[in-house]
């Protein structure tokens, strides 16, 4: 019986939660196409990850545990997935649309010479075809796309509910890594500077700052010094709420904060439950990255700012007056998720 395989994306010992969302999407495909869902875990010393995957509902977990797979090695990973496709009769691969997920999905689809449906938000089976909906033109339009299996699908982060962990554990089967013996492929030389905190795309709460963050007389110094203090304050609010810190491109371009934090058409596309935009005007390229957030709060001194057109709650005021009070209220009411 052919299988639907889910790639479990992780870095070090932390699984990208979107992998469990991909598992849910895979179950939908299995119901429509027939066949069972399996999870695939690659890496070094990934026993615990494989065990976690085993409790989230797959029929089986394939695990390649090899020092040569330590960290993330794109070619060795892609080659291993290719080998598994054949050996385990995998009809459809489902990846979460994380950085690594997208890269491996592309390499796998190309290597297998099959069609790919990237970054889908809905998925079903019609007449034996995989039919999906995906946002295009930065979410301004929705495209229905379809392909026949064998195929590769990637699921947009936070578009599907995560498969819950249960008590029953699926069997874990060890498989071989495909490691390049000739040294002709891409080799990883190592990693540096691990980023900290909650990942922006996976966060359920995001506090974002724009150029307005630098606009205050409450702290001394030049614009950059003010902005740095401002982003520290927004970061504190994000941390208390268990969320992540975002920014507009104007804030990134001005050097207030690093590009990893940029939300928008040329940054990250996010869809949290709560998005708090502070001192962001709401340019169309910014909205493209956050307009599907469930609840948007805008804090802006300009009542005409376009951000208020997508916001559910608006505060026309100086963010430097409001944010410190929000921090105090959240602490005082015991709503802080982190001390």
């Amino acid at each position: 019986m052919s299988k639907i395989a889910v790639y479990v994306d992780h870095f070090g010992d932390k699984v990208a939660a979107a992998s469990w969302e991909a598992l849910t999407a895979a179950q939908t495909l299995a119901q429509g196409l027939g066949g069972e869902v399996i999870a695939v875990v690659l890496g070094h010393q990934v026993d615990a990850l494989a065990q976690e995957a085993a409790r989230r509902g797959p029929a089986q977990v394939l695990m390649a545990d090899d020092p040569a797979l330590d960290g993330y090695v794109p070619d060795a990973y892609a080659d291993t997935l290719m080998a598994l496709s054949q050996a385990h009769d995998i009809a459809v691969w489902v990846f979460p649309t994380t950085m690594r997920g997208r890269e491996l999905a592309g390499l796998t689809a190309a290597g297998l010479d099959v069609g790919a449906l990237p970054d889908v938000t809905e998925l079903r089976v019609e007449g034996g075809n995989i039919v999906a909906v995906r946002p295009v033109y930065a979410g301004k339009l929705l495209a229905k796309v379809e392909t026949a299996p064998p195929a590769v699908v990637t699921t947009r982060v936070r578009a599907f509910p995560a498969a819950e962990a249960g008590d029953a554990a699926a069997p874990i089967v060890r498989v071989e890594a495909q490691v390049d013996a000739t040294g002709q492929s891409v080799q990883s030389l190592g990693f540096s500077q691990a980023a900290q905190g909650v990942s922006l795309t996976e966060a359920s709460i995001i506090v974002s700052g724009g150029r307005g963050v630098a606009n205050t007389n409450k702290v001394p110094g030049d614009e950059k010094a003010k902005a740095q203090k401002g982003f520290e304050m927004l970061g504190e609010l994000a941390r208390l709420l268990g969320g992540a810190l975002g920014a507009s491109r104007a804030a990134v371009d001005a050097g207030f904060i690093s590009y990893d934090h940029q939300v928008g058409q040329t940054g990250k596309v996010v869809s949290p439950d709560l998005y708090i935009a502070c001192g962001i005007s709401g340019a169309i390229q910014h909205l493209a990255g956050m307009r599907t957030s469930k609840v948007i709060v805008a804090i802006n001194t300009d009542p005409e700012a376009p951000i208020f057109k997508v916001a559910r709650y608006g505060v026309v005021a100086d963010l430097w007056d409001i944010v410190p009070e929000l921090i105090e209220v959240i602490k005082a009411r015991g709503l802080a998720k982190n001390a």
Partner: protein
Amino acid sequence: MKIVVPVKVVPDTAATIKVEDGRVTWGDAPLVLNPWDEFAVEAALQMVEKHGGTVAVVSVGDEHALEAIRKALAMGAKEAVRIHDPALAHADVRATAQVLAAAVRKMGDVDMVFFGRQAIDGDTGLTPMYTARALGWPFVGLVSAFPEMDPAGRTFTAERSVGEAKQTLRAPMPAVVTIAKEFAEPRYPSFMGIRKASRAKVPVWSLADLGLDAPAAKVRWPEITMPPKREVKVEFIEGETPREIAEKLVDKLIEAKVL
């Protein structure tokens, strides 16, 4: 060294995109070089400035693709080719990649292909991987720097972000890469560059020129629609003091079950 940059023309990021009679329209908004491809052109120019060689751009598309090609030429690319064939009307990403791979082979002696991260119309970001596999070349995604680029030794190292950390990779040449925004701000074309680009004759290749049959699309796009309008009416939170506003806002967020 010779670097090829595949470029795509797209509606401007500020365009209002709509579907009318099942077709995508963007009013009188201009068509521009895909913003992500600007970074790839910039990176390629920097590499040949350092190591010698030329940058060539290639675009699969109708005459509108000239907008993208001319911008890249104005920035400093020396060669360009456009690929157009009626048989490519329903090409999917995989088919486009096969065409690009054939073009790279035909151009000859290509050391590297620098892609943009994704095209802001289809937003797929998969053309680069398909092209790499079609060429049988290694692939490195989202490069922010090349600490080493050694065309004579046929190898390079690349730095890129994997989200949680920065990764350094080594790969042999020729190779396919995508360039990330962190690489460098794209330059503005010079006045001379713009003049030269506006006069450039851009050759057009057909599938026959590439020795290809019409590639069959595996992915179909039967329908494209406008997303349902989100009926949000902003509720302004007011109060005598910032504290009062903060209290009220927190009440609302608890009510909306997001805190």
